[in-house]
């Protein structure tokens, strides 16, 4: 299969320290792949290796079917990127910064600059010096540079950083439309797990340099654990009534159980509570969110 991104045993170490350890990534064309990890997990090092900015200590990288060559040579005319925080020449205007990117990409038509400014809603700042932009608009400028040449593959490090809630929604919709309508492959790292939840087709979780989990978004739904959350006016009676179940007390005082019998038949729990004189005032099955799943996974890897 011809992947948009393929790494084989990608490792990067500095002395004895492994920044990235034998990472095997397979990103299919047209999918949105989210790359999750704590600070220092190896996300940015991996992204830099994908862009030929650092040389792997071991392993290799293929981007859009092409192995990266010496001097960071690769299919960069077809790849857009935003690495770590966005950057721009502060004493040049937004338009000039984008015009620089246009020329470096060898695009003759200057209209692409106007098009991408309109797409990222920064046209009204076109003559403003980049150094005077708000952090949100600076982020949009970085994204505009990545999108300028209509790339087949977008590699984005924290694309929603510094954006306000409306901006986050706007960029999310833009990325979804690029992937769904233009079959652009998107490889993005993010700390905003709700964003990942809403965007990603597949998720890779990197921890201490190793890829510890790689799964489809649908599979993630299955893996996220469920629990039954219970609240009554008499919690001690409720505990007695549910003695045959493994019940824990949540931080807010409510009770919760992961027992499959309770999750499969919450009405059974309701009956037990009513018969014990502690009728439920709240009884709901809750699914672990991505944040909790992510933390559970990384913590279990630490143990």
């Amino acid at each position, binding site marked *: 299969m011809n992947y948009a991104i393929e790494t084989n045993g990608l490792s990067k170490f500095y002395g004895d320290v492994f920044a990235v350890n034998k990472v095997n990534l397979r990103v299919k064309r047209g999918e949105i792949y989210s790359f999750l990890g704590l600070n220092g997990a190896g996300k940015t090092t991996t992204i830099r290796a994908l862009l030929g900015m650092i040389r792997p200590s071991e392993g290799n990288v293929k981007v859009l079917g092409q192995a990266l060559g010496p*001097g960071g040579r690769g299919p960069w005319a077809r790849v857009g990127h935003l690495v770590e925080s966005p950057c721009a020449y502060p004493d040049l205007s937004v338009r000039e910064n984008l015009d620089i990117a246009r020329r470096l*990409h060898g695009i003759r038509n200057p209209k692409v600059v106007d098009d991408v400014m309109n797409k990222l809603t920064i046209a009204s700042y076109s003559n403003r010096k980049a150094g005077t932009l708000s952090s949100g608009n600076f982020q949009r400028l970085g994204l505009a540079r990545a999108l300028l040449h209509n790339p087949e593959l977008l590699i984005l490090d924290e694309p929603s950083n510094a954006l306000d809630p409306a901006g986050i929604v706007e960029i999310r919709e833009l990325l979804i439309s690029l992937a769904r309508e233009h079959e652009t492959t998107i490889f993005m790292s993010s700390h905003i797990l709700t964003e990942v939840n809403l965007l990603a087709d597949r998720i890779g979780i990197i921890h201490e340099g190793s890829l510890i989990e790689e799964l489809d978004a649908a599979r993630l739904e299955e893996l996220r654990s469920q629990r039954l959350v219970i609240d009554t006016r008499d919690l001690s009676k409720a505990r007695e009534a549910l003695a045959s179940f493994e019940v824990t007390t949540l931080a807010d005082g409510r009770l919760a159980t992961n027992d499959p019998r309770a999750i499969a038949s919450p009405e059974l729990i309701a009956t037990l509570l009513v018969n014990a004189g502690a009728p439920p005032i709240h009884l709901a099955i809750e699914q672990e969110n991505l944040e909790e799943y992510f933390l559970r996974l990384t913590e279990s890897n630490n143990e």
Partner: protein
Amino acid sequence: MNNFLSALWIETLKMRRSKVPLFTAIGFSIAPLVGGLLMIILKDPEAARSMGLISTKAQMLAGVADWPTYFNVLAQAVAVGGAILFAIITIWVFGREFSDRTAKELLALPTSRETIISAKFVVIAVWTFVLSLFIFGLGLVVGKLVVIPGWSMGLLQTSFVDVLGTALLVIAMLPIVAFAASIGRGYMPPFGWTIFTVVMAQVAVITGWGDWFPWSVPALFSGAIGPRAEQLGIHSYVIVILFSIIGLVATYYWWRNADQTR
């Protein structure tokens, strides 16, 4: 070729939008202006003394008030002032990419890193050479205004070679500064390196090894301590060219192969 012209256009745009060309031109203009002032003092020491100017010191620095002396002052200013000002230009062209964190935007592009670095070197070479021409031209204007004796067309030609030759030798040493700005990833390490080489150039001249020390060669060429034929040999020029090539190769190699983690 198109990629190179684009890269050249980009580097020129960055330069035009910056205040560095203006500041370096103003800074360098001090050389002919101070040279002119020295000539005024030397032409009429008594009048200068009555105006509070120190004529003895001027005599020690320059000599007598004539065009050969004035051109010699200009050439020396290019040798020493150029070593610092041209280095600042080079440090700005390369170091700003790290200070503005834009270096990472120059790496994964259809335009090769070598093309971008070549454009930077061309801009530095043209910028510093034009600055040297400007100083020579300004020097002529100041000299004419001050009315210095001893003018001749022959002197103009030899002095042009002295001043611009000195400038070219200073420019030839700039790739090492570019390399220092690249590996130092910013402004301070190459600036420290520049100060170090300026000081060491003085030490090399004092200890009699200036002809073997590439950073001393421009000052010796300018005639700072005597006719250059007595001070320099072919080996001196070979060493300058050698260090220039080493600087170029090292800079290209670094941009091509070093891990870019900023």
